[in-house]
């Protein structure tokens, strides 16, 4: 511990940054450091405060790498103790709990507080500010008994807060005094586009509104707000987000030089008018300005660390680039440099598209050579590039508008494989990186997935990366100038989408007919199952009907999932995971009788493993008798619709998620699609069913259901996106019908909805237009196609056991009733498992292989 004492008042984000920097530089040993922390906990990440609503704990948000980080480095922290006085003459700090600490150097890092306008009724029960974890705890508790929430202030923080209210299921309003949203960062055009977009998301925006009174109930609860124009807005909850004010009561009291509107004046070294007192973060005023972002605060912290360490060439603070890019309520917003075009003589280029709901603006220097700033709303994908252009004063092209106009070639909306770094692991089973795969494609001119597999082994494990590998081939060849086609395989010079169209339009019902009219050769393991799937999606005939049977992969051919030893697993459907005790008993009885290994799947049902071919029909018969049917675990088809327990039992539930999940699973069961489909329904915003990781997921709201689409777990997890909010049941099913059929119509073979979405030009807006606004005029057709599937559903197991011709294929040998002798089970943890090859080799004679 050092000899000189440093006192830091405030342990927020910037105060912590100072301490962490001193520790990192070994300065913590030279100083005796004491810090006062008014809040009941150490510094936490205020920037991610909103994630507290999404379930992050105070611990998760902590900025300390370990709970004893300060103590371990000899720093004394007084938690929950506020510094209340400073004696500059004797250099002593006094705290609320009566501590007196003499200092050699003092740092003020007291941050700011939310400004609450002096409106009558501002202290009503149900008014909040948005700054600390305690504020959020209060909001969460109050929201439980509220239906409507209002945010006063339409700035960056206000909109973030609105998003939180909306996610808590409240009817959400934003009330703004100014004539536009985000008045600091956006101009009128940008503000208007942002308003339009967030209103479409269901947040009501009221501009030019001056709140004159908050009317309370006799119990002191908020009743309504009254505005200067005499209009009123009833609400249960109000959050003030009308700007921040520096926590400068201490410096003011001790006579440091202050700004006219508050804030401690600091110089280039963040020193105040007292040479032994520094100020950093949101309490500091530099050149008439408070910097209300964390990055400039962090820079100030390093400036002060340099001073304390006596660095020979200390850093200075001379202002900061306040450019921002963020997602507010899911809307991309970017604002950088001179966004308002305030520079004398500057030129402005604007582009606004109300169809795509984007607004873009560039501000150029008077000589049109460099970029001074800009605004992006709705699509901020160019932000990184433009911001770099501005910072590096890159000379602009002759037509800089090309930088913001949509490219006529229609570049893909999503992030394709080209965006992945070379080090990205594509095949995690065999640990093959993108770099390795692309190098192999490039060096050996590979054009087929099979070749890449042979060369690099990528895709030879679980196979889930094959779509990515295919995209890499396309991308790499394109870069080499070789044109690639999306033909299904050598037998069909058409994409899956084209073949689907041909099947529908020409009413083709068999593979042979399609091959005769549009194909070459005899077909293969690629096109046969793909076309079998197209035929099933279109006509929904039994997959084992005569001509279809040999097209099917082994899983579909035997209506069960093949395992590594050639046996199969059986998964009966358990819609929404709801199962009767009797059915559970039957599962146990069947498993015991046939000596099957049982496991609960992640799809809320039970998997029975180790069934031999000839055992499948009798197993099904017993399951059918107990009311089970096929779960289609073997098909590229709808798997399960998971559900949480929902409002019937759960004290938080707002809808009966189980009943709805059952309805959905029964509607779409048996639907064949380009890849498997998964779904889930959660009974409230707590999202216990994890619906946002599904191809289509549903989260109940007070008013109905939110529909999310194109999510994915697995290798490349992707969150589902909100397609529509507060739907009633029938509307939700209508949208889902359209969405699923549109996907089935247009996706590539073995392409999950998430991958499909990433390639979809126009992205979410386009998908909304097709599904909700019926922009392609396909709505009725897609719904009718789905209704056909629903109406022609049959239980594939039942049809098979009832048909002797179909049943006869379920035997091990054509010329013997013997069971396959190479299937050998051993016991493990009280059940069977397939014997390993070594275990088998000792029991089997070589003749048998």
């Amino acid at each position, binding site marked *: 511990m050092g000899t000189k004492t440093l006192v830091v008042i405030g342990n927020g984000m910037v105060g912590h940054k100072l301490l962490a920097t001193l520790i990192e530089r070994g300065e913590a040993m030279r100083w005796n450091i004491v810090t006062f922390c008014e809040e009941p906990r150490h510094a936490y990440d205020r920037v991610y405060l909103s994630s507290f609503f999404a379930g992050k704990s105070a611990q998760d948000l902590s900025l300390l790498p370990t709970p004893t980080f300060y103590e371990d480095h000899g720093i004394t922290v007084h938690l929950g103790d506020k510094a209340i006085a400073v004696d500059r003459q004797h250099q002593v700090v006094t705290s609320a709990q009566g501590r007196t600490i003499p200092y050699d150097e003092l740092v003020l890092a007291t941050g700011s507080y939310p400004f609450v306008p002096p409106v009558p009724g501002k202290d009503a029960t149900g008014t909040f500010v948005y700054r600390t974890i305690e504020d959020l705890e209060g909001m969460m508790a109050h929201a439980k008994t509220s239906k409507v929430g209002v945010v006063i202030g339409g700035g960056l923080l206000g909109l973030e807060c609105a998003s939180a209210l909306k996610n808590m299921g409240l009817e959400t309003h934003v009330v703004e005094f100014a004539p536009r949203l985000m008045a600091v960062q956006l101009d009128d055009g940008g503000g208007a586009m942002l308003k339009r977009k967030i209103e479409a998301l269901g947040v009501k925006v009221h501009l030019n509104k001056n709140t004159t009174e908050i009317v309370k109930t006799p119990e002191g609860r908020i009743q309504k707000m009254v505005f200067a124009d005499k209009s009123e807005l009833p609400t249960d909850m109000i959050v003030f987000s009308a700007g921040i004010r520096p926590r400068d009561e201490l410096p003011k009291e001790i006579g440091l030089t202050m700004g006219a509107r508050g804030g401690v004046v600091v110089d280039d070294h963040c020193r105040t008018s007292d040479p032994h007192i520094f100020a950093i973060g949101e309490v500091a005023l530099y050149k008439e300005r408070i910097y209300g972002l964390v990055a400039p605060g962090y820079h100030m912290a390093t400036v002060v660390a340099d001073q304390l360490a006596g660095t020979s060439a200390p850093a200075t603070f001379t202002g900061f680039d306040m450019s921002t890019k963020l997602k507010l309520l899911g809307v991309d917003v970017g604002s950088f440099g001179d966004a308002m075009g305030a520079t004398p003589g500057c030129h402005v280029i604007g582009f606004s598209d109300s169809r795509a709901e984007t607004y873009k603006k560039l501000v150029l220097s008077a000589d049109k050579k460099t970029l001074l700033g800009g605004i992006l709303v709705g699509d901020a994908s160019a932000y990184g590039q433009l911001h770099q252009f501005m910072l590096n004063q890159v000379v602009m092209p002759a037509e800089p508008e090309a930088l913001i106009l949509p490219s006529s070639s229609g570049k893909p909306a999503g992030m394709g494989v080209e965006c992945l770094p070379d080090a990205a692991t594509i095949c995690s089973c065999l640990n093959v990186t993108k770099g390795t795969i692309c190098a192999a494609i490039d060096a050996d001119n590979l054009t087929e997935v099979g070749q890449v597999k042979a060369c690099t082994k990528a895709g030879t494990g679980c196979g889930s990366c094959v779509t990515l590998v295919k995209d890499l081939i396309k991308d790499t060849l394109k870069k080499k100038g070789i044109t690639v086609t999306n033909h299904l395989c050598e037998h069909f010079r058409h994409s899956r989408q084209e073949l689907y169209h041909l099947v529908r339009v020409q009413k083709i019902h068999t593979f042979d007919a399609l091959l005769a009219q549009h194909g070459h050769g005899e077909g293969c393991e690629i*096109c046969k199952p793909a076309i079998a799937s197209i035929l099933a999606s279109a006509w929904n005939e039994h997959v084992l009907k005569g001509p279809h049977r040999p097209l099917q992969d082994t899983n579909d051919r035997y209506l069960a999932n093949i395992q590594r030893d050639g046996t199969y697993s059986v998964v009966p459907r358990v819609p929404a995971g709801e199962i009767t005790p009797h059915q559970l008993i039957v599962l146990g009885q069947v498993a015991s009788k046939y000596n099957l290994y049982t496991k609960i799947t992640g799809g809320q049902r039970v998997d029975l493993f180790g069934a031999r071919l000839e055992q499948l029909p009798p197993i099904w018969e017993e399951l059918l008798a107990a009311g089970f049917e096929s779960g289609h675990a073997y098909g590229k088809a709808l798997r399960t619709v998971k559900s949480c327990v929902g409002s019937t039992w759960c004290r938080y539930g707002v809808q009966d998620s189980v009943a709805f999940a059952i309805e959905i699973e029964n509607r779409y069961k048996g639907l064949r699609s380009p890849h498997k489909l998964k779904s889930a329904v959660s009974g409230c915003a707590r999202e216990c069913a994890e619906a946002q990781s599904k191809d289509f997921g549903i989260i109940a709201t007070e008013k109905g259901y939110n529909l999310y689409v194109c999510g994915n777990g697995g290798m490349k997890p992707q969150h589902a996106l909100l397609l529509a909010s507060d739907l009633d049941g029938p509307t939700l099913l209508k949208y889902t019908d359209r969405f699923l059929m549109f996907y089935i119509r247009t996706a590539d073979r073995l392409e999950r909805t998430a991958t499909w979405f990433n390639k979809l030009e126009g992205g979410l807006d386009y998908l909304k237009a097709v599904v909700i606004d019926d922009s392609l005029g396909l709505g009725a057709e897609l719904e009718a196609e789905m209704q056909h599937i629903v109406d022609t559903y049959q239980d594939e197991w039942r049809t098979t056991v009832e048909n002797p011709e179909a049943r006869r294929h379920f035997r091990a040998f054509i010329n013997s009733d013997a069971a*396959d002798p190479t299937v050998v089970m051993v016991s493990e943890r009280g059940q069977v498992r397939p014997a390993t090859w070594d275990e088998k080799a000792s029991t089997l004679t070589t003749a048998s292989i």
Partner: protein
Amino acid sequence: MSTWHPLCALSDIPANSGVAALVDGTQVAVVRTVDRTGREAIYALANFDPFSKAMVISRGIVGSKGDTPFIASPIYKQRFDLRSGACLDDASVSLPTFPVKIEGGRVAVQA
């Protein structure tokens, strides 16, 4: 000298698919193809898939690569030339084949 083992009627094997047969304790995949001109062919090769080490070849999908007829293992999808047993995806691997014939509408293999 191996003998011919009668197995089944040709019509017991659906066109463009395989069945497994147990021939003196050896598992044989017998595959019947009917090309788009209606030409029949029959092949017999080992039912043992060396990649997965399981007896599954007969349950694969039958197809063609150029003029080469093949069956693809249902486990990891490697393709095997129906005529020679050679693996099309890994030159170092090949399946044993067996003589097979159709006589009077019935299939027999020699093993």
